[in-house]
Structures are given as C-alpha cells and as structure tokens.
C-alpha cells in the first residue's frame, strides 16, 4: 500500500576539522510496493543515514525522501513507519508488552485496540508467553524479536530495518531471517532492510539496491528473480543469484580501491 521514493538524496556530515564530508551522493531509488527492498553496501557506507532520512530522524541537505501511500481517497493520512534497530534498543526497565505499548502510545493508536494487537504480534514473533518478562531476562534472539514485534505492532505501512540480524549468532540470525520473511509476506508489508551481508540481501530482498561507500552512491538496482517462497539457500538458482550479487559488490569494491 505504500512505497518509498528517494530522489537524489544528498547529506553532508560535519567533520572534526570543520570541513564537510559527503555521506550521501545523489542517492535515488524506489522501493517495491509490498515486499522487501534491501539496501546492500559495505559497513559505514551511509546506509543507516539513509534509513534515518527515510524515517525523518535525519534531515537531508538536498533531495527528497517520500513515503507514498496509495490510499485512494485518504490522501491526507501520513504514512506510518515502523523501525527495527540493530541492537534492539528496548526499554529494559519495561516489560516486553510495555515496550510494545510504548510504541502504540507514541503512534497514537486507540487504547482499546492494544490488547488485541499485543496478542497478535507477540504471537507472530513467538513471544506470547514472555509478555510479562523484562528484556534483560531474555536471550539476544528473543530481544531482537521484541524489537521486531514493536516495529510491527503499530501496523506500519513501511517497516524500516537497520541490520536487525547482524548482532546475532549465525544460527539465530538464520532462523530469524526465515521467520521475518514469512511474517512480512503474510502481513503484506513494505519493508526496507539495510544490510552488508550479500546472502542476507539475496534471501530477504525482492529488490536489492547496491550502494558503494564514502560517499554512498547507488551502483545497481536488481530485482530478485525468485519469489520469497522459492528462496532456499541450498537451491542452485538461489546460489546463482547470490553469485551475481556478490560479483556486483566485488566489482564495486575494486573500483573503489582504484579510485582511492
């Protein structure tokens, strides 16, 4: 129901020595409507800055970011954005369900809807029985799921995810990726996921936007030939697509080295 339109986004950061550092260099892309768009690039390439610009946490110096919702009649409604962070940024002094109601309260969702939403989304991430627990009593994977549930519970038109699996161990990350893909498909979610992991991008992304670093610039935009259901990390078609992606990324790293 919504997509993100980024049009020549430019962002400078102030450097220690007083100069300006270009972080985003005329970045333009459209995300898919429904499904997941991955922003793939090396670490520190400004992907998170881009995500913050989409969410409005960060202002652009030039260019535009628009979240376009196709509601037909109700044009006045501003699209709702959900955010899932790298280290989940939970309020550790609040119980799992209170972390979710914090988001519901902030987004102004009527209180009579809360119980139903809590039940639904804590169920989806498999934490129904832990709703009264404090986050620090949970494992890292479970905490990340609380973060995911908090992003989903507000029923956002666009869900922004900033390397949500990168701090988890491999097995937990893999399992959570599968679940997230399933959940986002089921909820008809438009998702923007930032990652530096090629396999993750190939697995999660319906569209992959490849960025080069310092400053971030769009190198290539690829659509995944496989539908979410067809993606199996042992399947030859998946491996083939992953190779294509990897080659693009490697090529871009080489050109980066030549330039510097």
């Amino acid at each position, binding site marked *: 129901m919504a997509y993100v339109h980024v049009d020549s986004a430019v962002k400078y950061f102030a450097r220690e020595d007083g100069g300006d550092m270009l972080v985003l260099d005329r970045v333009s892309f459209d995300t898919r409507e429904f499904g997941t768009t991955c922003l793939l690039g090396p670490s520190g390439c400004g992907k998170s800055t881009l995500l913050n610009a989409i969410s409005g946490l960060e202002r652009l110096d030039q260019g535009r970011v628009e979240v376009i919702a196709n509601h037909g009649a109700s044009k006045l409604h501003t699209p709702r954005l959900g955010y899932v962070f790298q280290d989940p940024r939970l309020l550790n002094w609040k119980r799992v369900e209170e972390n979710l109601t914090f988001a519901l309260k*902030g987004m102004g969702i009527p209180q009579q809807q809360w119980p139903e939403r809590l039940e639904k989304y804590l169920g989806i991430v498999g934490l129904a029985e832990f709703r009264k*627990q404090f986050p*620090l*009593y949970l494992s890292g994977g479970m905490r990340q799921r609380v973060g995911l549930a908090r992003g989903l519970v507000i029923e956002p038109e666009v869900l922004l995810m900033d390397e949500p699996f990168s701090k988890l161990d491999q097995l*937990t990350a*893999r*399992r959570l990726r599968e679940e997230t893909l399933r959940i986002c498909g089921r909820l008809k979610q438009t998702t923007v996921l930032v990652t530096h992991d090629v396999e993750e991008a190939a697995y999660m992304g319906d569209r992959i936007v490849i960025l080069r670093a310092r400053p971030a610039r769009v190198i290539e935009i690829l659509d995944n030939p496989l539908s979410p259901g067809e993606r199996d990390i042992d399947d030859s078609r998946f491996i083939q697509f992953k190779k294509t992606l990897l080659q693009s990324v490697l090529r871009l790293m080489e050109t980066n080295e030549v330039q510097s």
Partner: protein
Amino acid sequence: MALNEKALVATGEAGAMAGEGVALPPRTQTGPAWEAAKTVGLRAGSIVAMMIVWWLLTFFFPPTLIPHPIDTLMEVGAIVNTGQFLSEMGATLRRVGVGFAIAMLIAVPLGIVMGTIKSLENFFEPPVILGLTMPGLVWAVMAIMFLGLNETSAYAAVAITIMPMLAISLWQGTKSIDKDLIDMSTAFHASAWSKVVDVILPQLVSHILAAIRYGLGLAWKVVVVVEMFGFSNGVGYQVVRGFNVFSMKQVMAWAITFLVVMIVIEFGIIGWLESRVTRWRPRIQAWRR
C-alpha cells in the same frame, strides 16, 4: 566459505527444531535465604564488635569521657520512654525532609538541563562546583543571619548545602544517557512527556538513588549544626545541651538514637526503594564474593 555454509545448513536445521532463545532459568533456590541470613549476621556481628571496642575503651578513660555502653543504652531507653525522642527527632527529621525535598526539586531539573544543554552546563558549572566546596557551617551561619532563627533558615541551610551534590550527580547521570534510545523514542513519535518519564528518568534512577544516599548523609550533618546555633529543639540542640552539662552519656545517647533512625532509613526505606526500581535488572553477583 562453501564448507562453512554446509556446516551451517546441517546444524541450522537442528537449531530450528530445538528452538532458540530460552529464558534464563530462575535463580538458584538454595542461595537467597542463606545469603540473606549471612548478610544480616555479618552486619549484626559488626555492630557487636563496635560495642566491644567501646566497652574496652571504658577501661582506659573516665566515665565522663567514655560512658559505659550499658549506661548509655539505658539513657537511650529513657529518652525514648519520656517521649522526648519523638518530638526532638520529629523536629530534626522535618527539617531534613523539607530541606531535602526543596533541594531535589531544584537539583533534578538543574542537573538534567546541565547534562543536555552545553551552554547552560558551562554557565552553571562554576556555581555548582563552588557550592560543593562551601562548608555547610557557612551556609548555616548565612541562612540564620539572613532569615533569622526560625524553621525557614533550617530548611534553607539544608537545601542549599546538599543541592550542588545532588545537581552534580544528576548532571553526570544525564550525560551518560543512551542517545540511541532517544532516537528510538523519536522514531515511534513518543511525546516529550513520555520521553522524560519512560526513557530518561528510568536511566537516571540509580543516579538519583545514589544522590539521595549522599544527600541525606550530608543533610543530617548540616541540620545538627543549624540546631546547635540556638534552636530550642531537635537532636542538635539536645547534643549541645548534653555538652553544656558535660554529660557525655547524653551526647552519646542522642547520637545513637540518631544513628538508629538513619540505619532504618538507609537499609529499610532506600534499600526497599532500590530493589523495587531495579528489579528489571538481573542480579549477577558472580564477580562479588
């Protein structure tokens, strides 16, 4: 890389079956009761040891200097029985309480502002540091000279003496606040009120509790000084009276009642408050034996 992936797939399946993420097991059942008993025992032992040292000292000094512990405890009993305890201690506690409340009302916002706004930090830093080094006695004298010998000057002296210490504690606490959580609350459109109550204050709680501890300790010391100057009630006044009639027994007896009240507040009220507001934090004490 390829090998690695094979291994990941093989074990990944098993991992998915078993289900990742199990809540921490509840704390061991044999531990807490024994630990609590040990803590109480050690504290009681420490008090008994101090009494023994006191008793030993009576052999070397005349009773006018070091009264016998039993005599002193009898005096404490007398103070409590005559009802003097309630009225005198009540007066002192009220002065400490009101002064402390005033100091908190000023110091909490001041500390938060100093921790968040750089220019105000620079502006308020010198007075706060100067205030910290100013002896409580000077504040007491100034308060009495400006406001006269009344309750207001006692409140003012207590408040102004402990205020800088509280402000510094809150100021440093505010600087250590996690900015990522503020960004998170902005991303979910939390109101300013919600940011303060749900995100900022909970991160300050341990700093506030530490401030309360030090602040109360400081407040007691100032309030007795103020009371010595010519108030006609309060624990400080009673200590001076004991001094004037050269009764070390009375001085000690009042000091002891004072200490008991402090211990009740420290371990009872503040301890309870602390365990209540920090119960979200798993107790990990393996490093502390």
